[in-house]
Every structure is written in structure tokens, then in C-alpha cells.
């Protein structure tokens, strides 16, 4: 996966958290700190990327993620172009490559790409002109590295370290790029007790080889954990095929106040959003005192600023 690092080990593209050394992950988290603090203090604008062009190229619908990337680029004073491309118009390979080449010709410096196919970000990075950076905003089930970084950033702000932390990722692991990216990032950052929790059809084959343990019983999986990362259940494709009903999923895997009360009092609850109230999480838990869900969104901007600043500093 050295596609994303240059010969000096500096970040050239951000495609996945897999294979990123701890020092680099920490550097990205450190770099996000001042952006987060400045925003909290009301100072939002930084002139760092004046004259740079960032293109948000989204082949999959997303308002939330696209907005945070847009905000991050704008706060760094880059020019931002948003392109929502219907997947149907890019069914052929030439068109996908043509899209990239056409936009490159407009002197874009950084592409933020979301695509439904796993490996799409790698594909763009392989074909991008020298000096053009690719930032993966989610490719299929494969990776969502900035989500993993913002989750790590949020955890670090509260727990200050990763060694000794127990983290459980709960729900639809099989389709989740967030789960995969979190596993790689948290492992690399020093977290050794990582668990994935869900019904067997939602746990992919061989996941233990990524360095996690698997638990099918929610309360056993959450026993003694410090952090719970709930995943969004893609309701449309779940019922019938993977699960009998959303109600049954909630009964066995939903995080409720009653269940939360039986866990460590300082346990943190996270979710990449948007949440399905009453499915993976009870509304009261989502906005309860242990929930970091809103803070994750806020931190998302700072972390994405950090990544953009890092990558574009390296492409000079």
C-alpha cells in the first residue's frame, strides 16, 4: 500500500489507514489539534491553502461527509468545487478515467473522492498525474480513512492514549468501510483489545486476521470496554437478506440506556452517523452524556483540515 507514501514516507495520498505508521497517524492527529482549538475559539480561517483547488468528487450520495470536506478546504482558504456524479454515467472505465483527466486539466490539486466500488481511491491514485493528490472519502466497503482519524482524534481527546483501551465496534461489520479503517488505525495507534460485535451474517470471513476478536453476544462484547463504536445499519439491504427485522436487531444489538447502565461508567459512545434511532441506538443514548456523536462531526472538520494540509504540503 505504498501508493500513498512517497520515498521519504510522507503522505502523498490518503487512501486507507492500513499500513500507515503510528508516527504518521499521530502527526495527523497532532496537526488537527490547533484547528480544533481555533474553531472552538471562533477563529476558523487559515490562509494555508490559498490558490489551491480542491475538488470534491462524489459518485455516491453524501451530504454530511461532503460538507465537512468542503468546510475543511474552505477554512484552509482553498478554492472548492463540488461535483456529484451519477454512478450510472460512469459505468464504463474510460469515463471514470476521463472524468479524472478532465478535472486534472483544470489544475485541481486535490481530489476528495467517494465511490461505491472498493478500490476506487487506489484506482484514481494510480492514474492521477504527478502532483495531484487523492483523498479517499469512502470507497465501497474498503476504507474511510478520515472517519477513522476523526474517531481516533475524538477518542484521544477523552482518553489521552490508546494503549490499554478496549474498543468494540458493533453492527454491520461486513459492509462497513468505517469498521475496517478504524481497525487498522486503532491497531496501529496501540490499541490491543479490539472487538467486533454483531450477528454472524454481518461479520465478514477472516476478520480476525485484521487483529480483532469476534463476539456475537452484545453484552459479552461490551464487557469492560472503554469505547463503543456503533455502525449505521443500511436498512434497505438488511431486512430479509441479513436480518429478520430491524426490531429484532434492536432487541439483540441496540444500545439502550438500560444496557449502557451496566457498562463502565466512563464508557464513550460513538457513531459515524447518520444514526438510525431505535435500531442500533436509542435516541436518549445518542444524545446522552456519554455520547460523542456530535463532537465527532465537529472534529471531522479539524481532522480533514489536518489531512489536506499534510498532503498538500508534501506535493509542493
Amino acid at each position, binding site marked *: 500500500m505504498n501508493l500513498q507514501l512517497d520515498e521519504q514516507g510522507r503522505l502523498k495520498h490518503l487512501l486507507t489507514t492500513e499500513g500507515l505508521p503510528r508516527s504518521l497517524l499521530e502527526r495527523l492527529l497532532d496537526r488537527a489539534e490547533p484547528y480544533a482549538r481555533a474553531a472552538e475559539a471562533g477563529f476558523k480561517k487559515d490562509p494555508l491553502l490559498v490558490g489551491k483547488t480542491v475538488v470534491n468528487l462524489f459518485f455516491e450520495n453524501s451530504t454530511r461527509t461532503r460538507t465537512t470536506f468542503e468546510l475543511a478546504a474552505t477554512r484552509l482558504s482553498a478554492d472548492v468545487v463540488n461535483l456529484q456524479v451519477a454512478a450510472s454515467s460512469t459505468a464504463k472505465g474510460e469515463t471514470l478515467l476521463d472524468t479524472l483527466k478532465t478535472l486534472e486539466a483544470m489544475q485541481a490539486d486535490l481530489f476528495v473522492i467517494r465511490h461505491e466500488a*472498493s478500490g476506487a481511491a487506489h484506482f484514481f491514485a494510480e492514474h492521477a498525474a504527478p502532483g495531484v493528490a487523492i483523498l479517499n472519502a469512502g470507497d465501497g466497503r474498503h476504507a474511510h480513512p478520515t472517519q477513522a482519524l476523526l474517531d481516533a482524534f475524538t477518542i484521544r481527546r477523552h482518553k489521552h492514549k490508546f494503549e490499554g483501551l478496549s474498543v468494540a465496534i458493533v453492527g454491520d461489520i461486513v459492509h462497513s468501510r468505517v469498521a475496517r479503517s478504524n481497525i487498522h488505525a486503532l491497531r496501529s495507534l496501540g490499541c490491543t483489545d479490539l472487538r467486533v460485535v454483531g450477528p454472524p451474517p454481518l461479520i465478514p470471513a*477472516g476478520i480476525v486476521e485484521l487483529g480483532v476478536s469476534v463476539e456475537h453476544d452484545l453484552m459479552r462484547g461490551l464487557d469492560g470496554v472503554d469505547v463503543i463504536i456503533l455502525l449505521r445499519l443500511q436498512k434497505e439491504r438488511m431486512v430479509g437478506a441479513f436480518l429478520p427485522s430491524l426490531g429484532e436487531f434492536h432487541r439483540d444489538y441496540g444500545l439502550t440506556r438500560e444496557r449502557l447502565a451496566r457498562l463502565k461508567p466512563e464508557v464513550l459512545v460513538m457513531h459515524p452517523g447518520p444514526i438510525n434511532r431505535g435500531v442500533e441506538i436509542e435516541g436518549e443514548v445518542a444524545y446522552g452524556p456519554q455520547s460523542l456523536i456530535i463532537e465527532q462531526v465537529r472534529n471531522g472538520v479539524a481532522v480533514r483540515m489536518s489531512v489536506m494540509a499534510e498532503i498538500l504540503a508534501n506535493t509542493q
Partner: protein
Amino acid sequence: MSKSPSSLLIQNVRLLDPAGDRDTVTNLLLRDGAIAALGADALAGGDESLDAGGHWLLPAATDLAARLREPGATQKATIASEASAALAAGVATLCVPPDTKPVADTPALIDRIHAKAAQAGAARVLVLGALTQGLAGEALAELSALKAAGVVGVSNGQRPLANALVARRALEYAQGLGLTVHVQALEPALANSGCAHEGAIATRLGLAPIPVAAEVAAIRQWISLVEDTGGRVHFGRLSSARGAELVESAQQRGLPVSADVAIHQLFLTDAALEGFNAQAHLLPPLRSEDDRQALRAALARGVIGALCSDHQPHEPDAKINPFPLTEPGTSSVETLLPLALELVHEGLLTPLQMAQRLSLGPSRVLGQSLPELQPGARLPLVLVDPQSPWTLRAQDLRSRGRNSLFDGRRFQGRVLRVFP
């Protein structure tokens, strides 16, 4: 290939005769495309002679699965381009699956493919007829008419049949005509549009998985139908240990089932997908190391009686896309013999066994006889240097498809000359 003189003496050659089950160093006189004499008798003649010490002479290969892309996808390749690439690589007979466009479900189309191949004048092209009309999996194609047009078997290619009843009736009907049903076993519901072997690598890369059960369930169902009907089934492109195991147990019970493997399955595993390598996007997918070892063992035991290339040439664009959106398949007819030689170097097969898996085994699947290498025999032969080292460059392939899995790989042994 250089033009053969009217008679040629090949001296001191290691002659691999699969049909005669002989492996000897001898002299051989070729005259007008037939073996004229062997041993000391051969030394009497020859307009030209060739010292082939250290080299092997064997029947040219018969490839049970090669897509030539014509008609229907001539942006990828043509019958002429692939038949001549194959022949130059020592593959003198190609068996084409019916999934051309239009589908090979009418005598007219079979005739057209045969005519194009004759025109090309390179490798001989045999056709598997469509098992169902349009390969739609529902109504049987006119199998008797296809047989009269010269198909060497029938198949639904990689397309599913509507249900087990269609499969059973197709098998019975084909049996009545003496046609073997070629099956690429993949239960479509379990394969579920996946693009990679189910396991840790597909999970890490986020690629939709194809479980081993997709192959095993389909094999099991077909074997049940063979048990009922006695119809003959050939399982093409086995990819899993459990699949090979099922075929072996069916053979032990005397059922008329045979199997082949695409030779790249014996060399690569799903590890080749690392970095979203679209060249390794295949169907069936490259599977685990255990599967690879079991397939090798099944080949050595003869459970898998034939090696094939599963040649699928593509235009470059077919592989220029994110992995799941690329087209599966690899351009592989030119690596069939070089890889087979490696199986000998690695000690898996004897040279004679290799020759058997490349010619006798596939011929039997097609119900064709392979002559013994005796005076009077007329069959395409290939002369190989089993030792000569070389490096494959995809851009140097003769096939129109440059989508090789082995670009840059070092090989030991190559085809020197083909006597068609």
C-alpha cells in the same frame, strides 16, 4: 513459426507419447506432417535434420477453455489473432465456450466459427454448443442440430440454469445424443455478484466474496443428477479443494465425471489481489493456499485430467477501472505450456504426465482419440526446450489481449517449434 520442410529428421529428442504411455529418447522422421519413422529407421531419411538433444517432443496441447472473442467482442480479440497466438505457443486445438455474441446456439453460428478458424489456418477451433437457447437457462437449445454441426460438447458457460429440473433434463437430453455437458460450477445465488475468494484478503480489501460453497453446491447438484441419469459431466475450471474432493469421490464411485483446472490456479492465490490488482480479477476467483495445494495434488493423482488456459483476452480498458468494475479473466493461452513445464521442474508431474494433462486428458473429455506417436500418425507436435530461461513481457504477447497475470515473471522452458 518457420515453415516445415517436406521431411525433417529430429535427432536425439525425448519423445513424450501420452497415448502410447512411453517416454523415450529417440530419432523421429516427419514427412508431410506425419510421423514417417522412429528410432534407427528414421536416420535413413530427412531433407533436413535437427539435433534436439535435451529437448522434448510431444503432442501439441488441446485447451478445453479459450475465449477467442469472435463473434461479439472483436475489440478484445479475433479468432485469427488468438488461433495463431495459441498455435505459436504450442496449443494446436482450442475449445471455445458458447458465450459468444450471438450465442453459439445455432448450427449457422457453429459453421461461422469453424469457417473463420479454417480461414485463419492456425490452431484448430472446436466449439461447445449452447446448452440452452441464448444461454438463458430455460429452454434447451437444438442439441441434435448442434451435434450435427460438429460441436464437441455442450455447456451453459458461466450463465446459470433456471433450476435443477432444467439441468436434469438437459443432462438427459445430451446423454441421449452422446454429448458431454461441460459445467463451470458456480451457484449464482451464493456467488452473489462477488469478485473475490471469501477470506481475509477479500475482507480487508472490502471486495464482495464468492464463498467456496458456491462451487461446491453446484458440483454437488450436478453429481446428484449424474447419479440419477448416468449422463456425462465435465467440471471445468475447478478452484477449490472441496470441489476436487467431490469430483474424486464421484470418480471413485464410477460416475462419468471429469475435471480440468485453469493452470494459473496452480500458481497463484487470492494474495495476488493485493493492491486491487485487476489482472487477478478472475472467475472462478483465485482461492487460498490450501485450495491451490489440493488442486495440484488432484492434478497429480489424475482426478483433474486436463490442464487448460481459460484464456480470456481483453482490451486494456476492460481492466482500467476500480477492481469490482473490471472484467474478469486473463490472457493465458501463451503461458499454458511454460507453466506446465514448471509443474515438471517443481516435481509435481513427470514430463509424460504433463504431456498427458495437456493432450490426452483433454482429448478424452472431448471424446476424441489421440494417436500414439508411431509411424503413420498424423497429429500436431510441439518441440520444447525445457530449460531455456526467459522473462514474459505482456506487451510481447501474440494474443490481442495483454492482460497477463505473469507480466515480468521468469520462466524456465519454452516452445521452440510447432509442427502443425
